[in-house]
């Protein structure tokens, strides 16, 4: 505290010496006021304004749609949340959109909240996926698939899922997807389930632009709610971290 006072005097002096015609000026400081539980005061007026909106939302958002065995959070290169969500979308997409989907790709930035352990309410699905994004299937050639793998590695990993195990690996010669099913490694073209946002080239996914495309017009939230509805308290959702994205720094 003493130190600050001293600084204050120094400033006064500087101002006085530096420019004596100046009405003295000083910036006192910047601070962040955290609105945590120790700030108890709320505004009645604001609460009243929010209330009717809140009532409409709560009636729908508090419905429990499923259960999760663990809290899932996102990280890079892969995470339980990213793997879990893309695996769920593969399951949904295969049964509702196209039974020949090879891969699901989302962007890390698009998963906006963690999934808590225990009951999952509708509101939580909105928290994770607030965007009104829909599911799109893009068809890529083998070469284009390599560009996709490279893009995902450039981003230090993104949420990816497949019907069975898939890996992205970086070699000195470039990045590739390696599917557990041998037959998938030799296909001529691949169907990628993704969001309309990425399919439009969002977040640097120019590899998806102007490619054969099927718009399902199904909201990603709708798909997630449908898949979570299959889980129960006894058989909750479980996600795995299984080494999908293998990054060898020696190959950089």
């Amino acid at each position, binding site marked *: *505290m003493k130190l600050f006072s001293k600084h204050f005097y120094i400033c006064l002096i500087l101002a006085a010496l530096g420019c004596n015609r100046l009405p003295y000026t000083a910036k006192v400081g910047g*601070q962040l*006021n955290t609105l945590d539980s120790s700030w108890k*005061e709320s505004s009645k007026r604001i609460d009243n304004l929010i209330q009717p909106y809140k009532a*409409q939302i709560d009636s729908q958002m508090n419905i429990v749609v499923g259960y999760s065995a663990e809290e899932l959070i996102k990280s890079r290169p892969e995470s339980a949340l990213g793997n879990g969500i893309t695996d769920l979308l593969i399951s949904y997409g295969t049964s509702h959109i196209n039974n020949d989907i090879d891969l699901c790709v989302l962007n890390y930035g698009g998963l906006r909240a963690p999934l808590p352990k225990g009951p999952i309410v509708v*509101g939580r699905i909105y928290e994770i996926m*607030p*965007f009104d994004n829909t599911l799109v299937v893009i068809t890529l050639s083998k070469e284009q698939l390599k560009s996709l793998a490279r893009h995902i590695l450039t981003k230090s990993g993104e949420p990816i899922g497949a019907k069975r195990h898939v890996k992205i690996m970086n070699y000195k010669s470039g990045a590739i997807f390696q599917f557990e099913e041998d037959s998938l490694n030799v296909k001529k073209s691949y169907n990628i389930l993704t969001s309309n946002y990425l399919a439009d080239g969002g977040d640097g996914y120019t590899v998806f632009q102007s490619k054969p495309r099927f718009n399902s017009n199904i909201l990603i939230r709708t798909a997630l709610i449908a898949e979570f509805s299959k889980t129960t308290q006894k058989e909750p959702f479980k996600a795995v971290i299984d080494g999908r994205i293998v990054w060898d720094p020696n190959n950089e």
Partner: protein
Amino acid sequence: MNRRDFILSGSKAAMGLALASSPLISVGKNRSSLSILFTNDWHSRIEPFPMDEGRYQGLGGASKRAALIERIRQENKHVLLLDSGDIFQGTPYFNFFGGKLEFELMSQMKYDAATLGNHDFDNGIDGLVRQMPFASFPFLNCNYGFEGTKLDGKVLPYKVFKKGGTRVGVLGVGIELTGLVSKKLFGNVQYKDPIQHANDVADHLKNKLKCDLVICLSHLGFEYKTDKVSDITFAKQSANIDLILGGHTHTFIERPIEVINKRSKVVNILQTGWAGINLGKIDYEADSYFEDQKAQNCMVKIS
């Protein structure tokens, strides 16, 4: 007021307390003092984070923020309340009501101005224009071209506020929308070089309109590993801007970052993180002018 209620992060709580009890500061309070309050990226976080959220549970909330702002206004009549964009998107409030409540709440809190973030285009230009009647404050941006869109004439490049004896010029800059927002949402909004346009406007504010303090609301993002324009690169190449209140990267900046601009003057950069977890506050004490940059900035380290 009870400064104990101002919860700063970590050890700075003690500093805040010390600062408040300094007699020098109280003297300042009786003179013309200006508090700049600011938020960014509140992403429709109307209520505090839910209690199953983990890291941020219980934090934020419009009602608590409004109460805090009200308290600060009682203490100091010269307050400027600003937002750096991405007001929209993130909770069901946006999905259900399209941002109407966000703007109503900001109007109730008496925001003075906001800039536009990429997510503010998430319901398209039409979706943004539809909610604008609920905002009692102006939207500021000087590097988007709105000609031929429904936003034409609805966004100002800058605004000058008179607070006590001080003239404060506020301008806004936005991030390149291509690649972040679907083209069909932002339509014919044209992105222009933010540094050049901000410098032109800041020159006008400082030198023609004689503003004592020039603040830029930025949604460019704090810093990138790539050469993408950020608040850091912008600040270095800027002139006539004193303070950049940033957004987009959800960066928690607890002390003003100092950057030397192209005229060897200090520019301060601040950002509050996101979601209304924090209310940023930076105070200026002055008799009437904000001219001596050196004197200003040796005080910034406090807090």
